[in-house]
Each structure stands twice: as C-alpha cells, then as structure tokens.
C-alpha cells in the first residue's frame, strides 16, 4: 500500500481535479445537448465556490450544507438569468452568457469586504475528500445517463435538431432549456464548492474567460451525444497537459493540435468515434 500513499501524495490534486472537471463537463453537456451555446458555467462555478467557501469560513457551516447551498445559489441565479437570455440562440447566447461571466468576475473583484477582491480567499478548510468527489460524480452521472436514455434525453436531442418541430410535438421547449441551464449551473456550483475546499485558495480570475473556454472545450471534445462524452472530455482536458509535461514549452502546441484533430475527424466529439467505427460495420437496429 506504500505505493498508493506515494501516488496519492503526488497526484491527489490531479485526481480531484479530474473529478471536478468531469462535473463541469457534465454541466455544460446539459446545455450543449439542448443546442445551447452558453459559456456562463465558469461564472456559476465561481458563484458556487465563493458561496461555499464563505459559508465554511465565516458561517462555520457543516461542509455538506455549505456545498449544497453553493450549488443552490448558482442554480437560482441561472433560473433568473435564463428567461431573458435563453430567448437568444447561437453566438448571441454565447455573447450574453460571456458578458454575464465577466459581470460575475468583476463583482467578485470589487466586493473586497466579502470576497477579498483580487487577493482572493485564503485558508479555506480542506474538507473535500476523494470519496466526496467520487460519490457526487457518480451520482450526477447516474442521473444524467438515466435522463439521456429516457424521453427527456430524446426531447433534448430533438430540441437541438429542430426547436420549432419539437415545440409542435407538444414539448415546452423553453422550460426544457431553462431546466437544463439551471441544473447545469447547479452542477457547476457543486464543482466550484468541491474545488474550493481542496485548493485552499480561490481568486476571481480562476472563474474568468479562460476557464469558460476550457469547460466548453471539455464538452465539445467529449461530444454532446451522451453524458459519457462529457466524462471523456473532462478527463482528457485535465490529463492531457500532465501527460505532455515532458514536452516542456511545446506542450500547449500539441495540446492544440490534438484538439484540432479531434474536431476535424470527429466533429461530434470523441464519444462519436464509436459511432464512426460502428458505421463501417452496419449492425441491425431493432
């Protein structure tokens, strides 16, 4: 067991990062699966991280309670932000959510009394243990896989393909989008809360544009056809920089090349590679 201890001592942060990134990828999968290009997930993560961390620091609340509240707050914000913004689509929706993300970041920067401003929050108790992350990832994955395999998932795919037709099949498309957006925000907040409680320190810039794009990359890379795609994307985007560490300065270059190759050859994400291979050997579908 000694090797395990050494491994954990070296890689615990990485393993926990994989977990929270998978949660973030799942959070963006929910909106991407409905055909919504939103990039507010980093901001929702930030709201969750700050809420949970502040509750732990000043409120001395039990960890699970502050974690729950850290997921509920961004979900509530999303439920209020959704109705006006989700009327937009495509790049316009991306712009609006991007702007919201900046508002959140700048607010965090300027409410120094509460958030510590640019200095961030220090000394967050390290409550997050591996099984917390594991249980939450497995739980979220179970729920989303169940959804995906049911009429809910089918309706989400239908919305992505043709909103008008889906509405005229009797589905409340606007409600579906709002649920997906809100649930995604909750998941992102949960990831933020978990992340804050093992990194010890958080600051507003962690939840800016770069993080938003990184989350989007996980979703797109893995593929939006299934929650499993998001899992693959989350794991890959976290591990790729580590695996390529030996390349030194060339690391970002190869990182980018890999992303481009995947998007070129499997535009629906890695998850779709399976379908790509399968379609060469047609199987009867019952």
């Amino acid at each position: 067991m000694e090797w395990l201890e050494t491994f954990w001592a070296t890689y615990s942060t990485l393993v926990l990062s994989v977990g929270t990134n998978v949660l973030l990828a799942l959070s963006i999968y929910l909106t991407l699966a409905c055909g919504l290009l939103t990039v507010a997930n980093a901001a929702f993560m930030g709201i969750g991280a700050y809420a949970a961390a502040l509750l732990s620091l000043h409120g001395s609340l039990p960890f699970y309670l502050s974690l729950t509240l850290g997921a509920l707050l961004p979900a509530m914000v999303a439920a209020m932000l959704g109705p006006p913004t989700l009327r937009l689509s495509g790049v316009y929706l991306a712009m609006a959510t991007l702007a919201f993300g900046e508002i959140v970041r700048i607010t965090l920067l300027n409410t120094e009394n509460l958030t510590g401003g640019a200095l961030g929050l220090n000394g967050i108790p390290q409550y997050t243990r591996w099984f917390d992350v594991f249980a939450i990832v497995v739980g979220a994955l179970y729920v989303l896989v169940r959804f995906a395999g049911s009429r809910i998932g089918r309706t989400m795919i239908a919305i992505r393909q043709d909103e008008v037709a889906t509405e005229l099949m009797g589905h409340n498309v606007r409600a579906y989008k709002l649920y997906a957006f809100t649930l995604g925000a909750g998941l992102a907040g949960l990831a933020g809360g978990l992340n804050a409680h093992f990194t010890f320190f958080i600051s507003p810039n962690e939840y800016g544009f770069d993080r938003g794009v990184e989350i989007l990359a996980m979703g797109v890379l893995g593929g939006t056809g299934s929650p499993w795609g998001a899992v693959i994307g989350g794991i890959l985007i976290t591990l790729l920089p580590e695996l390529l560490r030996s390349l030194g300065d060339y690391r970002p270059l190869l990182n980018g090349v890999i992303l481009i190759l995947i998007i070129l050859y499997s535009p629906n994400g890695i998850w779709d590679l399976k379908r790509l291979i399968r379609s060469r050997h047609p199987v009867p579908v019952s």
Partner: protein
Amino acid sequence: MLILSSITKAFGGLQVLQNINLAIPEQRIFGLIGPNGAGKTTLFNITTGLLAPTSGNIEFFGHSLTGLAPHQIVRLGIARTFQNIRIFKDMSVIENVMVAMVRQARYSALRVLVPPALLGAQCVERSEARSLLARVGLAAKAGILAGSLSYGEQRRLEIARALATRPKFLLLDEPTAGMNGTEKHQLMEDILKMAESGLSLLIIEHDMRFIMGICQEIAVLNFGQLIAQGTPEAIRANPEVVEAYLGNESDGVIMFAK
C-alpha cells in the same frame, strides 16, 4: 370544431390575411387552396400558435387559442406537418415518432431515475410507435436513420409523428409535394382511412386532382382573403377561383400589351 373568427395578420404594412372567418367541422376532410403567397401557411402558423394574429380569435372545442404557446395547442389536439419537411434527421424513424408521444406515458423526471419503471413505459411507447409507423407503411424502416428515408417516406413519417400526439385535428401542409403518382395514391387512401377513424383533417395542397378527390369541403384563399368556400364541384365551377388561378382575359391582354 375549429372556428377562426375575423383573423387578420399584417407583417408591417403587408396585409397577409384579411378578416378570415372559417368554421371547420369535425370528422371532415377540409381543403385549403389558393395561389402561392395567398396566406395558407400563415393561417396554419396562426392556428398552431407559431404566429400571433394581428387581430381575431380562434376557438377549438370551446377553448380560445389566443395567447397559448404552440405546445399547449398541440396538447389540446391540433397537430401539423410542414411544407418543408422538418423531421429529426439524426434520429431513427421510430424515435421520431416517440418524441411526439407527449400524451402517453407521462412520467415525471423523478420516475425516470428508477430503472424498471422506465423500461416498462418505454415498451408501451415503442409498441404504439410501431403501430403508427405501420399505419403509414414505414414499419419495416423503424430502426434506420430518418434522414436516409426517401422524400415521400419522410413526408409519411411526418404524418405518423403528428398522429403520435393523438390529435383531434390534423393540419397537413402540402402533403403530396415531391411524391410520385403511386405515393400520392397511397397517401390518399391513408388520409381517407384516418378520416374514417374519426380524425378531422385540414389540408393545404396544390395538386387539384388530389384535393378535389378527397375533400368534402374546400376554402379558397387569394391575396389574404377568403374568396370561396364549398364542395369541390362548386369550387371547380366558381369563376372567381378560376380567375385567381389562371387570371382573367383582360389581365392577359395587359400582359401581352406590355
């Protein structure tokens, strides 16, 4: 009974529909014809809630449809197909039908989390979807991707999908477009069978032989106005209708004079 009372629609200064009054009885096949741009599809879009009328009211079995969202109108029992086919191309044929089964097996998001309950409900949906596909002759293609169907088959899939919402009224927007003679004939039989089973149909169509052959009553739109309504025989003999489609002699003279 679908009653449109004084429906008017204007896009800016363009009057697309002017004071349309139309009562469409139950269990009938009702035709809606008119030259291109007459406002037929706009009337469909207003009826199904995609567009709001500038003024006027629609009543469906005593419910006012004013202000309802399209999905609510579908749930009251009005389903439609589209002039430009709008099937879900990347889904299998049977899934296309299953997406539309909103009235069947309505279970909550929480019940989805319980595996066995889910499986049971899916089987009921699947078998109903299969019988709907059989009704339009697509049972053998249930498993293939909808996008790989032929044009005529995609039109029939749209009808099966609309039927899956269990409508009282079915609105078909140019159902024979792109179909060959055999397919048209088959569709005619299918529509007659649907009407026999108690469904009311409202059909926009340019194929005169088709529409005269199956409709009990026909309304004619021209430049946003209802110019005639009656049996196929009466419509065929109506000079105003003939003029709307072919123009009158003086029009012809002007055209040649230019």
